[in-house]
């Protein structure tokens, strides 16, 4: 929506807006034809993680659009729980493996992967299969278990959270990619791209005690935004999230979403989630609160969405 308003009125993008719309910047730099070709959101269904990732990246105009030669890149999956990939508590390791490879192929000087886990970090990194996947692909796995790794930054746009300790790997990176797994969530109701950012902060206690939904939205207003969000919905935990009890909590939906718009991608992911379990947008305060903070749009109608079946 805003993108179109923007064109119609031919207003020069404000600094804040341009930060949110890296895709748009790239499009402006080239021409309108490229702009039309590059969708705001890509949804892929029916393939294996690697194949779906490639389809999505291709539709978006290639990983080179987001990752430049020589850049230090951080990939932030969800590795929160001591769970095997089949239980869908964490991002699919095959997706992470392919993504690390794509970033390195795009010329990234270094690709680092971390999460501030809930369960013991070493168990999580191992059980999730992500540590092994990253190492095989040539990336680096960093722990997020110690306060020492975190540095305080201000979040000017935040309502409740105006300062947070963020993992230094992310702060020092030239670009970072947000790769959540789509899940039901006991506290936030829904865990996807926005909620995944809670894994980049040290003190989550203040989040829970200061209006969790608002805090999640505030955190997404962090100046250092992901260059791309990729939602893993190959397996989806539709109940008992975010940890899950058993395979009965998991639906195999074989899907993947990609977008620079964190609000839009969560809105779309909710649509996908609703295919399995009903969940009202109204219950997921952080998405609408994020829209209020002008972090993106929930109005998918006005976006250029590309749907791909593999």
């Amino acid at each position, binding site marked *: 929506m805003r993108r179109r308003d923007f064109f119609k009125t031919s207003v020069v993008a404000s600094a804040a807006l341009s930060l949110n719309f890296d895709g748009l910047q790239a499009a402006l730099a080239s021409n309108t034809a490229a702009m039309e070709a590059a969708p705001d959101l890509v*949804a892929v*269904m029916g393939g294996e993680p690697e194949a779906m990732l490639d389809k999505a990246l291709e539709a978006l105009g290639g990983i080179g659009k987001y990752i430049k030669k020589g850049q230090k890149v951080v990939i932030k999956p969800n590795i929160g729980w*001591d769970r095997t990939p089949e239980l869908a508590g964490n991002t699919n390791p095959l997706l992470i493996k392919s993504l690390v490879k794509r970033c390195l192929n795009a010329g990234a000087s*270094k690709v680092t992967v971390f999460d501030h886990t*809930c*369960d*013991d970090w*070493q*168990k999580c990194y191992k059980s999730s299969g992500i540590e092994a996947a990253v190492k095989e692909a040539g990336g*680096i*796995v*960093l*722990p997020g*278990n*110690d*306060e*020492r*790794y975190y540095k305080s930054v201000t979040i000017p746009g935040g309502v409740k959270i105006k300062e947070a300790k963020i993992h230094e790997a992310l702060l020092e990176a030239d670009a970072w990619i947000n790769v959540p797994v789509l899940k039901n*969530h*006991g*506290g936030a*109701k829904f865990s996807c791209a926005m909620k995944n950012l809670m894994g980049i902060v040290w003190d*989550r*206690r*203040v*989040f*829970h*005690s*200061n*209006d*969790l*939904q*608002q805090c999640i939205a505030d955190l997404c207003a962090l100046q250092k935004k992901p260059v791309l969000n990729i939602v893993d919905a190959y397996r989806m935990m*539709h109940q*008992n*999230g*975010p*940890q899950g*009890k*058993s*395979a*009965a*909590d*998991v*639906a*195999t*939906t074989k899907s993947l979403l990609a977008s620079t718009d964190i609000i839009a991608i969560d*809105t*779309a992911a909710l*649509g*996908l*989630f*609703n*295919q*399995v379990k009903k969940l*009202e947008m*109204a219950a997921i*305060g952080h998405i609408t609160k994020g829209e209020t903070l002008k972090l993106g749009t929930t109005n998918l109608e006005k976006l250029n*969405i590309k*749907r791909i079946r593999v």
Partner: protein
Amino acid sequence: MKQTGKKQVNHLKRLRASLAILFFVPILLYFVDFTSALPQEVHTLLHLQIIPAVLSGAVGIIVLQFILVIVFGRIYCSAICPAGIFQDIINRLFCIGKKKRKGAWRFSYHKPLNILRYLLLTVTVVTAVFGITTLVVWLDPYSNFGRVATNLFRPAVMWGNNILADVLMRLENYSLYHVTIHTVTKAGLVSGIIAITVFVALAVSRGRLFCNTLCPAGALLSLVSRYSIFRISFDEEVCNNCGNCERSCKAEAIDSKNMKIDTSRCVTCFNCTSACTKKSLRYRFRPPFLKDRPSVADKAGTVKSGSRRSFFATGATIAASLPVISTIAQYSDLPDGDAVTAEDNIDYKNLPPVTPPGSVDLERFKDKCTGCHICVVRCPTQVLRPAGFQYGFDYLLRPHCAFESSYCNYECTVCGEVCPVHAIRRLDKEEKRTIQVGIATFNISRCIVYTEGTDCGACSEHCPTQAVHMIPYEGTLTIPQVEAELCIGCGGCESICPVRPHRAIVVVANNEHRQVAPPEEEEVKEYEIDGFGF
């Protein structure tokens, strides 16, 4: 008087030292290894320790130790006990750069402190029988060593690691990572400092005085070692009374003037046979039932009967005081009281300790645990921490589940596997997932959802069995509810609850652990989706 003759290779001493290294190094590394790099099986070495074996009733190991001591003497003290070897290392370090007379040969014969030694042993045994294991905790050499390693060596190694990790990380090397030390509590630290101070002070001033006076394992072994079949003895014909043996004896057990050796205190280190240039002192086959060694038998006999007399005397004293002790033992059960479990009236200050899964019940655990802290160091989530006085004097230094910042991993059974006393019973994974060590108790009046009217649910997030689950509250809000029959008391909920100073959900310990049904297994359904849904 020649002090240094031609040095001969002393095979027995070498063998003793090699054995000591073989036992000590893995045990030490097992305590300081914070990365869990060592194989879990190293804990087998801990099960060989005498006090843990006695407390756990490991008949096989007790028999093995008995055979060792009756045949070879107190090999245990020189080659198996980490505290004994640790004192030898302290002694070795002390001797660096010193002349023999001031260093390795600085000892002299002292009479045994038998009254103290056997009084301590008797009181330790009797009180332990009556369920007061305080003396065992404070005197067991292995546990004392454990506390030194856990609370002093391990944090030092971790700090070293952190410094190195920081340097390496600046060089873009990520092979090491920063670790946080959660397990060192004030009580643990003080106990470690006390233990190392005693070891250093006694080892430097009086050699193995700890082992021959304070140590209940040493005292126990001494009752048998005085009859050991192989023992060090004098050949009076060749002895020239040079006194080197006496000066080299860290057990202060050789009276060279009278050519007497107190076998009850000899720890078979073979330092004396090294020091003896005349080959008078040798490790010989001298079974007590053979009467063909007049000189040795007589002289050992005087020592023996003296100590036996004092042993019986102290035994009688203890027997007379039994009623008193048993009264104390009963009294010690009282102060614990029952937990207040009413939902909105949690008595936060007087909650009983949550004992590790497998410890069965609080009283049993207190009776068995010697506070060696091996479970504390091996616990991957660092939830087990040594208690101070908060649970009473009789729980001092025992590990408890501290849910301040951590919780017990649903799948983990490590503490039970490593516990040498079986104070924490071995559980298999399936059993562990159904052992209820306590029950999460929810206090709605403190809950964020109730007080602030905002979403939280952190407790439910961390609940592996979904005993803590979210139910509809006002509007779109949901609030936690606990199903006690599913809760295993892992503390996931308590560890993450953001409410302070007291949390809205806390685990109230079961003084007796219960077994609950495993979470019901739901049927795995296939979900067909026909579109993206947007």
